[in-house]
């Protein structure tokens, strides 16, 4: 069994969120280690996105704390958390549709300082968006918007990149490109990745460590093979007694 990296980048402890009478997330503790790709899976409504939103600061947790390299992020606003190095993307891409690709990229730092970021433009070239710089982001295909969204997030040089369902709604080719891109980002930009997804194939392939949520609680954690063989996880996903062994989705 491969040992996890000892360096914790992001640590969430005892995260709890209630919406009225519903406990969306209950006492969830998890961590993201340096340079690892960590996965968060679970059935619909299990609290994955709520957990992400609490880490990203858009939802204030009722209880619990998030620390980035030991520094508490609790009570910080989303832009402060992003600036400190926890950058998220959203389930549906959130590019600025009526701004050009170039404006999407230069909005944060201004034209002059963004032009000096060679690694950003290298990445843009890599994903093929360099020929689309003066198109409105809304004119791009959905897959290209995903790429832009991802590159824009990476341009912040995050310590941890939170990706909410990066593979949802893209075709197989685009999925491979996204996987390659995420691997490249982790390697070249020394970024830790924390992602939510339903694509079991990809998750099992890409992640070093996986957390499983069901009904707002953490039911399993470990490396892919461990999670894949975990009866509780199988039950949460497929119901009791229907699946006899591990299966790829």
């Amino acid at each position, binding site marked *: 069994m491969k040992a996890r990296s000892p360096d914790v980048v992001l640590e969430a402890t005892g995260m709890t969120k209630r919406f009225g009478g519903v406990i969306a997330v209950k006492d969830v503790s998890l961590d993201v280690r340096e340079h690892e790709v960590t996965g968060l899976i679970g059935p619909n409504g299990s609290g994955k996105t709520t957990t992400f939103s609490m880490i990203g600061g858009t939802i204030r947790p009722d209880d619990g704390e998030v620390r980035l390299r030991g520094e508490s992020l609790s009570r910080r606003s989303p832009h402060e958390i*992003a600036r400190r190095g926890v950058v998220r993307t959203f389930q549906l891409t959130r590019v*600025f549709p009526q701004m050009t690709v170039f404006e999407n990229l230069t*909005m*944060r730092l201004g*034209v002059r300082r963004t032009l000096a970021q060679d690694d950003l433009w290298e990445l843009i070239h890599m994903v093929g968006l*360099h020929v689309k710089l003066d198109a409105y982001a809304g004119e791009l295909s959905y897959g290209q918007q995903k790429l832009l969204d991802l590159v824009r997030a990476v341009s912040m040089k995050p310590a941890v990149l939170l990706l909410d369902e990066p593979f949802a709604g893209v075709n197989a080719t685009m999925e491979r490109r996204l996987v390659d891109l995420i691997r490249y980002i982790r390697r070249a930009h020394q970024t830790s990745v924390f992602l939510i997804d339903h694509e079991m194939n990809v998750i099992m392939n890409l992640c070093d460590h996986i957390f499983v949520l069901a009904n707002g609680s953490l039911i399993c954690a470990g490396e892919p093979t461990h999670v894949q063989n975990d009866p509780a996880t199988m039950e949460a996903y497929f119901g009791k007694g229907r699946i006899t062994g591990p299966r790829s989705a």
Partner: protein
Amino acid sequence: MTEALADVTEGSPVVSLTTAGDPRHVRLALARRRQHRVAAGLGTLALIPLAMVPDIVANDYQLRVATFAVMYMGLATSWNLFSGFTGYPSFGHAAFFGLGAYTAGIGTARYGMPIWVALGAAFFLVALFALAMGLLTLRLKGHYFAVATLGIAEAIQAIVNWGKSYTKGTFGFALPLSATGVSYATQYRVMLGCFAAVVALTVTILWSRLGARLLAVREDEMATESLGVNAGLVKIVTLGLSGALTGLFGAVFAWVLGFLTPDSVFAARIGLEMVVMTIVGGMGTVLGPILGGLGFYLLPEILIGERNEMYLVWIGGLLVVTVLFLRRGVIGTLQHSRFWPRGLRL
């Protein structure tokens, strides 16, 4: 001023000016900067005929009309600076206009300020007021924000009506240091100067990082925050500036008119006109509010020959046509056509 403007917006060249071997993103940035310089140059040139208007017009009445047309162009531009770029529709800009006018009026009438001091006082006081209003209302969005700003503006007018001992209430008062003795031509040129300054400021902001951030807030505030941008700060600073500029026009208006009543400067109609002019011309563009302000003020004048209540029919009719057929406004539609370079914001 033009050159200085372009330098502020794009900064000193950090990339080589030889375009031959440059990568696409550098070429694009250089091309955009050239376009900005040309646009700023043409804009400055356009000031020459505008400054000559007093020598061209046939009589004082026409010069008066020109003065107010320029004022409305400036007001629409000021409104657009906040509401057009961020997409937060303020219906309360009449409050800024009125407060600016009353600050200048009370400053000169009660405290004997020279008019120039009173103009400055109006600018800063209204800026403070706009910031306070932003703190109260910027948590709201869309219709809620619109109604809240409208409500505050109405409340301010009611307070001015009510505070008779200080504001003279609905009777109004005359400004002792009004523009009497200053020629209409000078009054026009002062107004034109304010207008030119507001436009120059608008393009400087629009072509800078702040401008891109304002547009980003309009597009998707949460995504803007997730990229480490303090959207709240961006919004409130711009609202403060937009309000202060509107207040400045109010102060100049008071000076030109020489007599103030709450209804002449606080009426919700004034705020509404800024909104309609900008929507018809093109929200979130530089040229849109200018064209909208000009068209809206001059068309009724030309077609009806006098300013009467018929102009309300105009406002309604043009707004309906715009909303139905030109949803981005005249300039906005033009700039979204495929003939316009993407990302050249004017």
